[in-house]
């Protein structure tokens, strides 16, 4: 057994001519990851260089255009809006807030999804049937409608609460994914071997199966994060998000309710949209990159 493994390893090493040939060096994945890293750095390092208190109402003069337009000043490089918030400070505060909601919701959803999915795939029988049916129904429910109905009653006190509610819709995708993966994996030789050797089920799940699902799980995670951010931003844009913390969606809400479009205040509505486009595009590229890593077929014909 060990000898066979050894020779195949050597063959693999020979075929992979250099370390740059790794599937993890997928350009889409790398570009996406760097976009997200840059955006996150902007939010993380911003407070060191700029006063985040300026993101709150009446901290600055109102309706100042950006510094490169006539009438703008270097004190507020990206301008200010009608309630006296500095746009640069709003972005510095808003970007991490939006990212945080997505990450918390997605991690929770993934946790539930991996647990339920492996239980369903592993146990089979009626448990599998119940979990599968629940996941399928939840997947169909338009989360936006339920979220709006919920948010209209309970004013979300902070982003964590919002993330918790969003997580309720984040689990079915990972559940279906893990379940189908477990179903195919458990027919493999090494899993059967482990079963025969009486390895405890949890160890099989986490030590034998999980490493093989890694790229799928990663793709699912990035996809879920961007889905959660989409939900949160939608709610905030409608004015139903947590009002204490400034977020990107809230900037859009303020600008739309103050008809910034008609008033030609491009510097008000455009920056949060650009930031969000970068965030969504980054996660999207990461997701399809990871999909290609997980599923070599998707890499197309050039690399085949």
């Amino acid at each position, binding site marked *: 057994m060990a000898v066979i493994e050894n020779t195949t390893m050597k063959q693999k090493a020979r075929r992979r001519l250099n370390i740059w040939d790794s599937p993890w060096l997928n350009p889409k994945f790398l570009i996406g990851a760097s976009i997200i890293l840059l955006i996150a750095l902007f939010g993380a390092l911003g407070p060191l260089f700029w006063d985040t208190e300026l993101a709150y109402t009446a901290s600055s003069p109102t309706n100042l255009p950006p510094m490169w337009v006539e009438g703008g000043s270097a004190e507020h490089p990206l301008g200010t809006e009608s309630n006296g918030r500095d746009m640069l400070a709003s972005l510095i505060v808003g970007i991490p807030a939006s990212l945080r909601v997505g990450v918390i919701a997605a991690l929770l959803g993934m946790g539930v999804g991996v647990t339920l999915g492996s239980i369903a795939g592993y146990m*089979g*029988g*009626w448990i*599998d*049937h119940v979990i*599968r*049916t*629940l996941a399928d*129904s*939840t*997947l*169909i*429910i*338009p*989360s*936006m*409608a*339920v979220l*709006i*109905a*919920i948010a*209209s*009653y*309970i004013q979300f006190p902070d982003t964590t609460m919002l993330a918790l509610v969003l997580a*309720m819709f984040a689990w079915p995708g990972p559940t*279906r*994914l893990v*379940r*189908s993966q477990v*179903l*195919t994996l*458990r*027919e493999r030789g090494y899993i059967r071997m482990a079963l025969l050797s009486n390895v405890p089920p949890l160890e099989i799940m986490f030590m034998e199966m999980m490493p093989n699902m890694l790229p799928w799980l990663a793709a699912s995670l990035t996809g879920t994060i961007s889905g959660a951010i*989409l939900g949160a*931003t*939608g709610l905030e*844009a*409608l*004015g*139903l998000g947590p009002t204490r913390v400034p977020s990107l969606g809230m900037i*859009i809400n303020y600008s*739309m309710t103050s008809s910034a*479009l*008609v008033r*030609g205040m*491009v510097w008000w*509505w455009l920056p949060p*949209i650009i930031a*969000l*486009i970068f965030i*969504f*595009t980054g*996660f*999207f590229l990461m997701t*399809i990159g990871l999909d290609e890593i997980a*599923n070599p*077929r*998707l890499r*197309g*014909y050039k690399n085949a």
Partner: protein
Amino acid sequence: MALPTEGHQEDLCCYPEVRMGGLTKEYVLQRVSMWLLTIWIGVTLTFMIPRLGKGDPVSVVMNRLVQQQGYVENAQQIIESYKRRFGLNDPMGVQYLRYLGNVARFDYGFSLTRFPTAAWKMVKPALPWTLSLLAVASVLSFSIGVTVGALMGWRKTPGWLQSILPVSLTFTSIPYFMFGILIIYVFAFKLKILPATGGYSRDVTMGWNTEFIVDVIRHAILPLFSIVITSMGGWALGMRGLMIGVNNEDYFLLAQAKGLSPARIFFRYGIRNAILPALTAFALGLGGLIGGSTLVEWIFAYPGTGYVLYRSIVTLDYSVMQTICNLIIIITATGVLLIDLLYPLIDPRITFKKSTSS
């Protein structure tokens, strides 16, 4: 622990099982119960979660009103009378059953802002706008997306096409409504070639005259555009993967070996076989599409349910809000049910597997 032995199953486990026959009774029953279950979970969530927190809806609404307007006369009495009126002092179980009954009869009481009008009456005139916008948008985005994706996954697609097609995926990750804001700015405010908001101009008489129809279409272009451009990439990506899979199938290679025309191979052998899982993905994505279009309607002030929903959020009209949210849940679930029921008719090989795995 003994594992029950079972063969490989693909992700779309609950759909395909090769068996002869069309719509069987089990399949229809299964799908209809799924439909009921989905609606039940959705409306239960909207009922339960607000009540997990402190207080009842009426007090919450009243507190918000007090917060917004500073002071409401006799707030406590109003709360009490509303509680009695809506039976909010009853045990939770009784309230829940009554709520389910109301959902089934589609009775959501009266609009809070225009009191004597029923909530349903406020929503009804908006429905045709939303349904037609959604129908056109989803059909366009799905058919364009599937064609683009299939071309991207097809080995025989000309190289120049292969290289320009991915451009169509540029906007895929942008939320519909944000793309909507961008194109309002470009097409309505900068280029001034299309109307920015609304469903029709005020100076046009409503009715079946050409002027009105052209006007409605002109107003619908931007909202449609913002949904179609941003949502088609998702279908395209999925279809690409499916088409790549079909490329290697024996029947596909045989069709090529027989020298059939490329168009025939592409449509009859490629798309026709690859499209079924894409259709499932479409059914599952319907909820996101409808939710996203709500925000698009808000941005464009389009006279559909999404805009009514936004108005009701601003004016704290909770019964109208509840009506629309439940309506969206029901419409989505019904859409999925219809696709599921059409599924076996499109591909006669597939009927519902009689849950042998359970």
